[in-house]
């Protein structure tokens, strides 16, 4: 098994604010007292982020001794209050297999990191590492809040809840906030005047309410769906808005993978992915992650060395705002991924949902959502049942459940027969052997 990157940020003490510099991940800036520990198994990458963090601290008058960096997470986990996980297990070559093998069978993915063959194999690679990290957390800092940014976040969160039910483990994404911003842009509305209420599952959550200064503006958005300019930019989401009546989170390209409607035939692909890129280009993830490593590291070097100025623009990420609220800085609402229990009443209680949560001193409180509109719950359930079988497969190291998960994957099932799916899964297991635990290969 090979692990590529492994960032853990540990924070201690109160008083942060949530400006995050461009180009770096989520780093909190302290006003008074904070300790940050950076962890990665890749020493060269670790040294970049460490120097960048030191630069941020120095520019803000904070002693850089408060930053520690290590390749051994166990050395820093003790006493941690907040832990961020954003790891990538298996490099671009593993992802290439996630995309290219299914493509040979006709399953055309754009990002492939959430569900479907790519998402499920990413989960197979990642879950064992996340569980190792969680075992250390359970031993060394069981009270810590753990925020996972790693995909596929619903499956990972679900696996962790099964194995470590008492950990305060949550998954965070920016797709809700980002979609709100996009809607505001499409409609020419000031974002700060837009109120929204979003619930569903990660990468497939629904804008249930949309108000501008108190007024219900959903009818205006629904009208806008017929504007060809918007359909060109955000094709599949606008198409779903037309047919299902609600706007969904993430991006058009991502969204096109989680249902049976857009990627099963070449003519549909052409029609529903105009412009390519985030709008649904085949294998776009490979472009995204495969960009020239050398120039990427040169950019990191320029930031680390101070040659390039740091931007202190506020990011969309929830992480630091959540910590601020947990430390008593006031109530903050965020969409957070956690076990459903009964918050969405027409999704299974055990699944992971992305629902509005109110974060207050020391606690994350999910709001009650109730029933989703039937047509929305139905699509979520298609995805959730596939996730559930993947989770079972991961927990029991049972390949049958991985077949089942993909038999029921909305896109795969729309393209392939049962025996084709089984062969595809076997091919992927064979090709990704070096990234997966041996237990998958017994019998």
């Amino acid at each position, binding site marked *: 098994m090979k692990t590529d990157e492994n960032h853990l940020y540990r924070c201690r003490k109160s008083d942060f604010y949530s400006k995050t510099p461009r180009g770096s991940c989520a780093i909190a800036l302290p006003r008074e007292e904070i300790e940050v520990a950076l962890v990665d198994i890749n020493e060269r990458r670790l040294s970049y982020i460490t120097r960048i963090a030191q630069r941020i601290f120095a520019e803000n008058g904070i002693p850089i001794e408060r930053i520690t960096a290590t390749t051994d997470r166990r050395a820093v986990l003790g006493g941690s209050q907040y832990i961020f996980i954003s790891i990538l297990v298996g490099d671009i070559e593993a992802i290439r297999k996630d995309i290219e093998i299914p493509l040979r069978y006709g399953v055309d993915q754009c990002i492939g990191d959430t569900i479907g063959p790519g998402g499920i194999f990413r989960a197979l690679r990642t879950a064992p590492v996340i569980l190792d990290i969680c075992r250390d957390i359970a031993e060394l800092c069981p009270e810590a809040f753990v925020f996972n940014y790693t995909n596929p976040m619903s499956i990972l969160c679900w696996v962790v809840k099964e194995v470590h039910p008492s950990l305060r483990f949550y998954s965070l994404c920016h797709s809700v906030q980002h979609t709100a911003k996009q809607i505001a842009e499409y409609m020419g509305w000031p974002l700060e005047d837009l*109120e929204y*209420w979003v619930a569903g599952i990660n990468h497939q959550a629904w804008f249930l*309410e949309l*108000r501008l200064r*108190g007024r219900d503006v959903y009818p205006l958005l629904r009208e806008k769906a017929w504007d060809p300019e918007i359909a060109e930019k955000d094709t599949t989401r606008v198409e779903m808005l037309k047919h299902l009546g609600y706007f969904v989170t993430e991006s058009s390209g991502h969204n096109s993978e989680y249902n049976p409607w857009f990627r099963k035939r070449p003519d549909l692909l052409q029609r529903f992915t105009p412009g390519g890129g985030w709008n649904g280009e085949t294998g776009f993830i490979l472009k995204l992650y495969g960009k020239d490593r050398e120039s990427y590291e040169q950019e990191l070097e320029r930031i680390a060395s101070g040659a390039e100025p740091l931007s202190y623009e506020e990011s969309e990420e929830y992480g630091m705002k959540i910590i601020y609220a947990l430390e008593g800085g*006031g*109530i*903050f*609402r965020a969409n957070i991924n956690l076990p459903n*229990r*009964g*918050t969405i*009443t027409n999704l299974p209680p055990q699944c992971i949902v992305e629902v*509005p949560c*109110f974060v*207050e*001193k*020391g*606690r994350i*409180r*999910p*709001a*009650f959502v*109730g029933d989703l509109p039937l047509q929305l719950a139905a699509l979520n359930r298609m995805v959730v049942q596939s996730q559930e079988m993947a989770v079972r497969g991961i927990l029991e190291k049972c390949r049958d459940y991985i077949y089942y998960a993909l038999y029921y994957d909305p896109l795969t099932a729309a393209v392939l027969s049962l025996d084709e799916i089984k062969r595809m899964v076997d091919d992927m297991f064979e090709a990704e052997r070096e990234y997966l635990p041996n237990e998958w290969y017994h019998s």
Partner: protein
Amino acid sequence: MPKIVLIGAGSVVFAQKLIIDLVTFPSLRNSTIALVDIDEERLELITKLTERLKEQEHLPLSIEATTERRKVLRGADYVINMIQVGGLDAYRLDVEIPRKYGVDQTVGDTLGPGGVFRALRTVPVLLEICRDIEELCPDALLINYTNPMTILCWAVNKSTRVRNVGLCHSVQGTARTLAEYIGVKVEDKMKYENEEYEFFYKPMPADIDYWVAGINHQAWFLEFRYKGEDAYPLLWRAMEDPSIYSRDIVRFEIMRHFGYFVTESSHHMSEYVPYFRKNPELVVRYIPKRWDYYEICRAGLVPYLEKIQRQIQGEEPIEIRRSLEYGAYIINAMETGEVTRINGNVANTGLITNLPYGCCVEVPCFVDRLGIHPCFVGDLPPQLAAINRTNINVQELAVEGILQQKKEYIYEAIALDPLTSAILTLDEIRSMVDEMFEAEKEYLPEDWKLLV
């Protein structure tokens, strides 16, 4: 600038408190406040008082006053209900008739014979108000302060489409009391005229956090923390101190035997369970100092009214201070987006998973510009849900009895009341209920008069 209608504004002391709360929020200083009461004299009193407040504080407030609510409901954003149907005369019967039978209620406004009859008088009037809201201001939020909270809100949820929340101060009031019990001091140089003012205005310590859920007047402190740590051990220790224990015997006994502290007061709580009031000896043992709310109301209003007169005349300033009531906080949060957390009474749509679906629960809710968002609570500890369910049984029968005008359900509701059923036989209960129906006939709606 929101339009806020106060119905029953002739409850001058309470209405004054809420109106002052409203104007302590800068966002609400230019509200339109519409005062409604069917008692012209009382209406004039609260109108003059509000005008005096406007003058004293140079507020850009618009004030309207009417005895006919339909004249002011159109365009209302918030409707605050604080009516008392039948006034003190009916209330006297709620308390005195059962007392003759040995059912000794101290407040009698929530459950039991008093609570059920108060509901019989009040639900029909509240539903008429709701019909007007549905017609004239269908998007308005109804904030209900009238008791019996749970039966009223349940009836509203069951038979109207009005957005509503029921509010009480027993959660936040109890939280502050518990802070005192565990010795958390809060800096406070205020002088309070009496205990009631102290209750409403004394500040809350900053380091206390709580998570409370259940039903109104019987909600449970599921979490009680001081400086982030569980403070229940401190509370258990406080119980050992006789000077603290003696202030709240019933609720400490409930904690001793059921594991959790409950909202409201020892007086109130003693009425909702079978253990404390089933004979005079027990009453003396658990409630050494009587606190009979009907008598307090009868005697206690005069000094308040005198004070209000002095304020209207300008002889005494109106003090501007913010009480612990949630109402103004909610309106401010909905107008500005400054998020606040309250405990609200809402329909149980799956919020508390081991209480009946559809009953009225008191749960933590966050409020923002989108409105009131109840939180998911999940299962209560089973022993707490069990106590709540004994009360919900009564409430459900009362709601169904009132909505279906089925008199048998009213007998059955009271027959299942934990206190009444600990004292009386079934036929004694029936006689008592009959006597109450007869005596309160004039306060009941026409249809019920026929049934009686």
